[in-house]
């Protein structure tokens, strides 16, 4: 059962910001509700005022940025919209692939990509993937709009750099150039994954010239495995190289023992999944004709 609350329907972002400022700690943004209603039902939090930002038009639009170098994904786009967007499928196919693996169909139908990021659940699929993509987030608050790189957004378990009066407007994701290969590896025994790895490689003349590796679900926030990225750069893809990179992923886990598995098991999974993701990404990048 939910404790009583009022629902407010702002027509614009600035109206929503005003409401959040006015009600302060008594208010929460309400978007898809997939995470918020769960913790409210459990009685872990109570907000007498919910600000329903789904009433603001255009917040779910997915479009190319003006420079055509990035995709702008409206924060209110549902996982299902991200999965089925032809723009996402064309330019960042892995994001569509990963969106299709979130929760279940009902969660994907209502849950939004922005809500997912702002809730900062440590097992979030989009968070890990977007970290590998080098995404940035546009936030609007009392002091105007600012852009935060996703690496600075997740500050802890369920904690982000978003200020209480700020609303996430859109996620800006660089489009992958031709010659890129990406892969997302995931292991789940419950509704939420035990370990997730996102890899994006770019190859030129059979050499890896850029690599991004992100690790999720095995610590309080998703992390980039910078050491793995460094040893991959400038090298030819191969088993030994990938094993060395995967060892760095294993070392980068900050896991605890919980229902998803022991810390040691999660570290092991991080290594195995990184190796697999690297192999798959390299094969896709090697195909070379388009973005994979």
């Amino acid at each position, binding site marked *: 059962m*939910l*404790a*009583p*609350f*009022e*629902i407010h329907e702002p027509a614009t972002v600035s109206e929503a910001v005003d409401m959040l400022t006015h009600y302060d*700690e*008594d208010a929460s943004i309400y978007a898809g*509700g*997939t995470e918020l*209603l*769960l913790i409210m*039902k459990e009685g872990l939090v*109570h907000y*007498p005022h*919910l600000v329903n930002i789904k009433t603001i038009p255009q917040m779910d639009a997915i479009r190319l940025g003006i420079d055509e170098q990035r995709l702008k994904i409206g924060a209110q786009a549902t996982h*299902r919209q991200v999965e089925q967007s032809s723009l996402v499928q064309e330019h960042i196919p892995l994001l569509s692939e990963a969106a*299709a693996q979130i*929760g*279940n*169909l*009902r*969660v994907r*139908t*209502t849950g939004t990509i922005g809500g997912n990021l702002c809730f900062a659940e440590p097992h979030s699929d989009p968070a890990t993937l977007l970290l590998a993509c080098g995404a940035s987030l546009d936030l609007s608050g009392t002091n105007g709009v600012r852009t935060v790189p996703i690496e600075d957004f997740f500050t802890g378990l369920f904690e982000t750099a978003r200020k209480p009066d700020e609303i996430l407007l859109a996620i800006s994701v660089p489009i992958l150039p031709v010659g890129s290969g990406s892969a997302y590896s995931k292991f789940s025994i419950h*509704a939420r994954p035990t370990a997730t790895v996102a890899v994006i490689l770019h190859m030129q003349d059979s050499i890896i010239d850029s690599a991004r590796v992100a690790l999720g679900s095995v610590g309080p926030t998703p992390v980039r495995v910078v050491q793995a990225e460094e040893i991959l750069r400038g090298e030819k893809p191969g088993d030994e190289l990938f094993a060395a990179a995967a060892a760095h992923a294993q070392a980068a886990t900050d896991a605890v023992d919980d229902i998803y598995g022991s810390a040691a098991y999660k570290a092991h999974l991080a290594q195995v999944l990184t190796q697999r993701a690297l192999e798959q990404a390299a094969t896709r990048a090697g195909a070379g004709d388009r973005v994979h």
Partner: protein
Amino acid sequence: MIVSTEVKTIDLRLRVNGKEVAASIEPCALLLDFLRDQLGLKGAKRSCDVQVCGTCTILLDGAPVSGCCTLAYEAHNRSVITIEGLTQNGILHPIQQAFLDASAVQCGFCTSGMVLTVKSLLAQYPQPTTAQIKAYLDGNLCRCTGYWNILTAVRQAAQVMASTGALSP
């Protein structure tokens, strides 16, 4: 933290199984409770209560949602289909008939959610692949039959619906 004791209500207007419904609800009312307790539609069941099991599946504008985690408020000016809306004049919907024919039902607790999810599947993919069936039914758990007969039922329903042109309701 201020918890208001004064209960404000919302005037809800929606279409349930093809019929216009108007009701007064609290903003915190869940769609599942509204359907079961205020409208007496008991086909959607509460089980896990956390959007995992699928027994409370209903269709909101044709898309499956969990009644247990959806505010009734969300249904304003929209269309809700529950399992009670599938049988027309005493004749089972082809999906319901296929579940019976394929013995895809044992205790039946998960069945209404399964059938509604399959309805949305066949609306989008009239001839679904096994992968598409599994992707849709991934979030509907059955704890007695196993899933084989359910997959068979979906394929049979797709066939029957294609041959009879039965697409709605």
